[in-house]
């Protein structure tokens, strides 16, 4: 009789009390291994490879905004020394040319930004310069949305429909050409 009762106890359901412990263990494992990777960066599209060099002499000087960065991370913008902080404003002024000066771009569609660095330039500086130039275009695109596409309110240019975005980029295309770097500061 006593035997039977012990058999009865065996057939009881599994104790779920330890379930929480097991789950905790797994949870802690995943907590430790998790790296919620925030992968962000500056997206660029490189030009396809071609053997022949582009001849820059065909372009009018007024349409080219040249930025040179040397091995000491110093900037030369349109043949004058400059700092990174003023780059964004100057690029914007160059592209839009609001006061119709005859030494800045004829119109936004003709504006070309030419970026050239040295092999000894720090990557940090290069990226900062690139960031500023990209920032200039981003600001212009945003201003364009605010000025001519009021139906989108104060949205940024990358939050509106693709077709409109394309239209805006047709008006202010981003042309950033990167020349083969110089080799003065090779490490």
């Amino acid at each position, binding site marked *: 009789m006593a035997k039977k009762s012990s058999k009865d106890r065996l057939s009881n359901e599994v104790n779920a009390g330890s379930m*929480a412990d097991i789950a905790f263990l797994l949870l802690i494992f995943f907590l430790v291994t998790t790296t919620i990777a925030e*992968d962000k960066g500056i997206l660029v599209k490189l030009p396809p490879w071609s053997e022949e060099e582009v001849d820059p002499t065909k372009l009018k000087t007024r349409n080219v905004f040249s930025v040179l960065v040397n091995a000491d991370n110093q900037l030369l913008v349109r043949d004058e020394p400059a700092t990174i902080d003023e780059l964004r404003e100057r690029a914007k002024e160059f592209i839009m040319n609001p006061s119709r000066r005859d030494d800045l771009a004829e119109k936004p569609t003709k504006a070309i930004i030419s970026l050239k660095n040295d092999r000894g330039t720090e990557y940090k500086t290069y990226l900062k310069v690139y960031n500023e130039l990209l920032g200039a275009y981003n600001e212009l695109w945003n201003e364009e949305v605010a000025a001519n596409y009021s139906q989108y309110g104060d949205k940024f240019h990358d939050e509106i429909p693709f077709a409109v975005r394309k239209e805006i980029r047709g008006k202010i295309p981003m042309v950033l050409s990167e020349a083969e770097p110089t080799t003065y500061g090779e490490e």
Partner: protein
Amino acid sequence: MSKFQKKRGKASPAISTASLPDIIFMLLFFFMVVTVMRNAELKVNVVTPSASELTKLEEKSLVNYLYIGKPMPKWQNTYGTTPRLQLGDKFATVADIPLFLEKHKVKLPENKRGRITSSLRVDGEVTMGIVQDIKTQLRKSDQLRVNYSAKKEVEAQ
């Protein structure tokens, strides 16, 4: 007064913990889903610079990573201190890039191959020489979508 005492006497028992496993399981599933197992052990030191005009990388499976930086201290005896390229989990040279890209490409369905992005995780202190060589190699391999990995800039205000 007696009313209060009565209530205290009947104080409810401890909170039931029966739903605890469910809560824990919910958390567990959340972390299981968001976890990305690090598939490459970093052998080079990479501190990406900060920038403000950032784009988020969309599909993880469509991204391949190229690390460039100084070898970590324990590898410096073998590989020196000049910045090097790391592909997958080993040191590599620029010439290894095409094969690396191809290996990543064949794992993906054909219709998605056009959207493959190369994420360049480059240390801020590295000079442009090696970066330029890699960019040239990427262009030659027809891998034109490139993402310069960067941190969000903390605005000084």
